């Protein structure tokens, strides 16, 4: 309203100016520049929040839970700042659709910036300073990596900016009401300041470039990892495989875990497991206690579930529920595992809770009918695959190697399916447990050898040439092995350099992994990381 008033005054002062020139003049003012800057910031913020961070936030939404129900939110409401985290979680639900969630973030950031400028009464030439708080928040989201939502309250992601916007908004309204002279003079607004233009032209792109670069530098795995998780939500295993292959040099335990799920689901575990770098870079993340933590349980539920160890998945997801409170991720798994366990009443309980969360109708429509018609469980491709891979003898989780997933298969000795034999053999290759590997290979004599298994056998044939007679199909692999051994010989004393220099040529070739892969895997999970703290019988 003020702006209009000022413009009207200008019109009265310059009646002779042609209308077009007048319009152009009005536009090329600091106000106009600022408006363009705000618009540009909004568009970039929307792009950043929906495209660049869309998958990250989508997974944050899955690891969060909000329902407009006092019983369900009671545990959170009683925590310090619980009301704020509830608001934050409510806002995060819009990330069910990243474009919509991104729009909300863009609105929050833009409003926050506008209010900042208004409340601080920034001179026009320094108007670009108002974007700094938003930039700081974006930088924070990039800096915390997995701790954005894992082992930390997900409600703070949007709860804090929401609170800031509300406070600034209240401040702005109070300023407006209490101080009628707050608006800047028309003269100041209309003086074109090159500092302002340059400042905005530089600062606005920098606001987004900085967090993007920072995320790429410190948590490069975040976007591929969360992208694979989103693909897993849609059972897009081929897509997960593609995502991993698009970043073959990027690997940590989490990415490797999801990659293995994709391969297991598409029957390519023995063909492609070693296609990506399996070096397991240390990630920068912190546990509940504030100490560095590799977040080893981040992906263990997904891995165990898809390896058929749904009881072990239940164990860990129940622990996540206990420590972090309800999340959609945990509740959905608990519902699905209850269906697999034929605990139909229990499944209905979880569906009843999930139904209270907004936007989860699709999940309910897909799975809830199975609680009334258990025969649908067997017919569902995902469940059928999990049940097919599930252990068929009674045993205890404690009897198998940790972590579950391939650890379980590496200690299997009898197999009910061809897949179980293949997974177990590949698990031995992955663990470089060659005697165990050879034991399992005897069962492949009459069938075609999967790629990695053939390569592992060829490697063993160097020490045991008789293998070439048992498996004549190894001849082709042996030729490549000779080349590899020749190329690898200079690096016997410097495996790290060899790992880097030979990677492009030999990625996916098992002997490369055997000699150069997983060599920095020195991190051994502590008792605490394995979850033995707070242990007790409940």
């Amino acid at each position, binding site marked *: 309203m003020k702006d209009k008033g000022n413009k009207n005054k200008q019109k009265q002062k310059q009646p002779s100016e042609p209308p077009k020139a007048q319009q152009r003049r009005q536009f090329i003012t600091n106000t106009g520049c600022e408006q363009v800057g705000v618009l540009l910031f909004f568009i970039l913020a929307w792009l950043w929040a929906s495209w660049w961070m869309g998958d990250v936030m989508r997974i944050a939404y899955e690891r969060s839970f909000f329902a407009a129900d006092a019983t369900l939110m009671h545990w959170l409401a009683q925590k310090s700042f619980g009301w704020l985290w509830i608001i934050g979680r409510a806002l995060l639900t819009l990330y069910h659709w990243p474009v919509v969630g991104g729009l909300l973030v863009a609105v929050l950031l833009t409003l926050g910036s506008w209010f900042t400028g208004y409340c601080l009464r920034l001179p026009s030439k320094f108007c670009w300073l108002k974007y700094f708080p938003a930039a700081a928040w974006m930088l924070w989201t990039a800096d915390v990596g997995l701790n954005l939502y894992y082992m930390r309250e997900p409600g703070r992601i949007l709860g804090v900016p929401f609170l800031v916007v509300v406070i600034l908004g209240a401040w702005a309204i109070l300023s407006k009401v209490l101080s009628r002279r707050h608006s800047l003079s028309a003269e100041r607004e209309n003086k074109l300041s090159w500092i302002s233009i340059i400042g905005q032209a530089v600062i606005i792109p920098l606001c987004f470039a900085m967090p993007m670069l920072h995320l790429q530098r410190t948590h490069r795995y975040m976007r591929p990892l969360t992208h694979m998780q989103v693909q897993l939500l849609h059972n897009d295993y081929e897509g997960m495989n593609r995502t991993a292959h698009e970043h073959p040099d990027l690997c940590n335990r989490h990415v490797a875990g999801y990659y293995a799920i994709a391969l297991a689901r598409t029957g390519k575990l023995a063909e492609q497991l070693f296609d990506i770098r399996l070096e397991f870079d240390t990630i920068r993340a912190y546990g509940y206690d504030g100490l560095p933590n590799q977040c080893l349980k981040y992906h263990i539920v997904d891995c165990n579930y898809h390896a058929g*160890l749904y009881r*072990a998945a239940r164990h860990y997801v129940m*622990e996540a529920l206990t420590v972090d409170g309800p999340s959609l991720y945990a509740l959905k798994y608990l519902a699905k595992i209850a269906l697999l366990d034929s*605990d139909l*009443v229990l499944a209905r309980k979880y569906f009843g809770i999930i139904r209270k969360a907004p936007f989860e109708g699709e999940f309910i429509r897909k799975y809830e009918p199975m609680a009334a018609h258990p025969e649908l469980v067997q017919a569902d491709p995902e469940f059928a695959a999990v049940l097919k891979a599930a252990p068929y003898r009674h045993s*205890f989780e404690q009897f198998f190697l940790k972590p579950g997933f391939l650890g379980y298969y590496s200690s299997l000795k009898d197999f009910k399916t061809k897949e179980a034999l293949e997974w177990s053999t590949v698990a031995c290759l992955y663990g470089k447990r060659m005697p165990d590997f050879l034991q399992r290979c005897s069962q492949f004599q009459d069938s075609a050898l999967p790629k990695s298994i053939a390569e592992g056998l060829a490697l063993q044939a160097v020490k045991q040439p008789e293998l070439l007679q048992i498996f004549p199909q190894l001849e082709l692999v042996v030729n490549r092995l000779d080349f590899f051994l020749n190329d690898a010989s200079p690096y016997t004393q410097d495996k790290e350099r060899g790992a880097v220099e030979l990677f492009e040529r030999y990625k996916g070739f098992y002997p490369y992994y055997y000699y150069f892969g997983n060599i920095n895997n020195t991190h051994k999970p502590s008792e605490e990381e394995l979850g*033995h703290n707070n242990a007790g019988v409940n």
Partner: protein
Amino acid sequence: MDKALLYLRCTVLIAAVAMLVCCSSRPSSLPSAFTEVSDSAAIYPDYRDVTIPPNIAPMNFMVIDTVADAFVADLGGVICGASADGKIDIDSTEWRSLLQEQRGKSFNVSVYAHRPQGWVRHPAFAIYVANENIDSYVTYRLIEPGYELYMQLGIYQRNLTNFDVATVYENHRDISPGESHCINCHKFQANNAERMYLHVRENHKGTVVTNGTEAHKILIKHDSIIASGAYGNWNPKLPIVAYSTNKTAQVFHYNFNEKIEVFDGESDLLLYDADRNEVSHIIRTPDHFETFPCWSADGTRLYYCDARLPKFEAQIFEAGLVARYDSLFYDIWSMPFDTVTYSFGPPQLEVDASSMNLSASEPIASPDGRFLLYSLARCGQFHLYHRDADLWLKDLQEGTCYPLAETNSKEGDSYSSWSSNSRWIVFSSRREDNDYTRSYIAYIDANGQGHKAFLLPQRDPEYNLLLLKSFNVPELSRNAIPLGQEQMSHVILFTDAELATYKGHVARSNSGNP
């Protein structure tokens, strides 16, 4: 200002209209015209044909009918309406009058549902009102169902005559390293909440022992004691507690219809003197597992469970034990206790479960001295996780043992507590969904017959469906715990535990293992 006033008026108007709409969708009288239908109304919780105490809180329930948009329930003349959510919220004053009128009798409940074609009435069901009250309070722990970690735990005391819940103690809501502690196993002396104990594990560990509004924290620890006291029971007459001391572990089943097995690798029995802060061994045996001690009503006999360590060959003891977990069969034994000399007599077998390849656990004697209530399952002593666990009663006068057939369910029914008049029990059951333990109440008549159990009523009948925690260790008491939450917190968090003096073995008039 004018605009603000206008907005305010609009808001009030909208709210009033919304309230009117809401109220109008909740009928307040019986429909004048309806059709009888033969199918029973689907209600939650299942309160059909249950026997209830005359002092119980309103038994609100919800009708599950996705077609109907309104409901009316006629509870012996008390009319309650419900909107589409089907939640019947009974007026507490009318409910109390109804129960006093029907004490020793029964009343019918008719449910009417408004479907698109008009009102229908489902067949009525009965609710029986016993003559005897139940103890007014039940104290329980809320915890996620099973698994190894804990976070936000609380012990709460619920007033059974209404819906009031008082927090006895909550550990922590936020994760704070060095502060994490587990709380469990609370127990009252003879249903009197003036005297109780409460265990704290990990940080701030110890056992809080209260006497009225006084409380102190003690620690049972000695080289010869396996661990601090676990399952315990107050002598009803003396300031002493019999504890088991257990080395407990849990394992997770693969490919089995149960999820978890909890077993002991070792266990013995202790006697703790609360006045002197002294502890001594009652039984200490390497090849027998003794646990779940419980005093008789007059305090002159101690019941307990005992299992012989099964034979196995394994390099690792625990691994061998896990492999033979289903060979651990507990019997219930008892020993006479001299209340003057504090000595025990020779043990005698009370419940011979092992001879049937079954296992008896969690014995609890009725305050009138007539019955011994226990749980029976295929193996082990932690029957919470055993789907086949049932409640059994031993008639101590007749010497007969029998299941509480009407009270039990297909799923696990276990840990129980008697009301001080011996007519009511509250127990843990997983009957609803085989995962979340809930507290059920059942009437035990003078002949020792158990009646159909009912779920602890809640103001919102949907509460149990939404709660992601189990009700653990329900204990009945006649009165409220006099100690406030702040006092309890102070004792747990800010006082040092006094180490109990170890006094060796309690005298035995005829020593030896059962």
